[in-house]
């Protein structure tokens, strides 16, 4: 009985989740082609503001969702990692575009094969680049995830990916 959350705390968490999901301060980490579709989504035609995510913050300290938009090269990976570390909890990561999800068709010496090898990722939006409708869908999936998150501030440990070593 004592382990079950009380009425009060579960209500409070619901309220927190509701508040958080409609006030997403995103940090757009734009590197490549997907940035064009990110711009299209953010501007008036598709208007990401309708989902409470209309205010990009260009400082990781003020942001709570990291949008990784575009291919991450090995040269860029340490920068991305540092930006993620600079963000305050609670924080979420969206992999925008297939290059960030899996590396896409740039399977070569220069490219990180999916940012989930270096960061925990919450929502994957595949597509090369994804259409704005897909981005909005991914955003709503993220909102669901934020809403249902319990015990504020902490998050389940990301699933570890097996390290495949090949030369």
């Amino acid at each position, binding site marked *: 009985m004592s382990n079950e959350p009380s009425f009060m705390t579960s209500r409070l968490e619901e309220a927190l989740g509701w508040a958080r999901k409609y006030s997403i301060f995103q940090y757009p980490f734009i590197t490549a082609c997907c940035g064009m579709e990110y711009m299209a989504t953010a501007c008036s035609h598709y208007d990401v503001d309708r989902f409470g995510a209309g205010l990009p913050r260009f400082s990781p300290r003020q942001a709570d969702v990291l949008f990784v938009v575009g291919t991450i090269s090995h040269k860029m*990976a340490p920068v991305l990692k540092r930006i993620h570390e600079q963000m305050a909890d609670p924080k979420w990561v969206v992999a925008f575009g297939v290059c960030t999800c899996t590396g896409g068709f740039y399977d*070569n010496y220069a490219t990180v094969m999916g940012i989930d090898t270096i960061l925990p990722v919450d929502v994957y939006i595949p597509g090369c680049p994804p259409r704005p409708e897909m981005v909005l869908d991914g955003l709503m999936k993220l909102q669901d995830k934020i809403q249902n998150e319990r015990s504020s501030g902490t998050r389940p440990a990301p699933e570890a990916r097996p390290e495949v070593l090949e*030369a």
Partner: protein
Amino acid sequence: MTSDTLIAAVTERFPDGVTASHSYRGDATLVLKRESLLEVAAFIKDDPALQMNMLVDLSAVDYSAFGKSPVPAFFASSGVTLGPSLQIPDKDPWPGPPDAAARFAVVYHFYSISHKHRLRLVVPTPVVSGHGDSATAGEVDTLSELWPAANWLEREVWDMYGIRFRGHPDLRRILMYEEFEGHPLRKDYPVKRRQPLIGPLN
């Protein structure tokens, strides 16, 4: 100037420096000795009839795998020969790689804004020591004194092919990071050999 007169103008001036020339598909091309690059470059830049004032592009080619790519034979085991698609006949064939003994070739493209003609210079560069991916290529003179555009382009060639440029003011990697070993566009650099700074290999 047409490509033939362009070739003639430079060849007449430097009969020893120019080893070969062709104008395949209308692109005037001169193959130069490495030693004579600087004087030819200075000549084509300042000569009033040529005035190659813009260095459009500078890149390199690694000819070590030229003509050696395997041709996959489908249905060969079944006895049915499905020949590769026909090649379009070539009236004026390309003479081939600039120098059979040289592994690399540095390729320069010039354009003259005033005369509206283009010229390609090819400088074959042999391997001077080592072999395979640790081979050291011979040095080529830098053109960054004549065209500032050459500065970054030569850095890129060094980064991608490991060809050094003699007299370059600041020859360091430009696209890859300093920790990277090897030169990725060489033919013997495997496409998927990763050298991550952080994170797993794959």
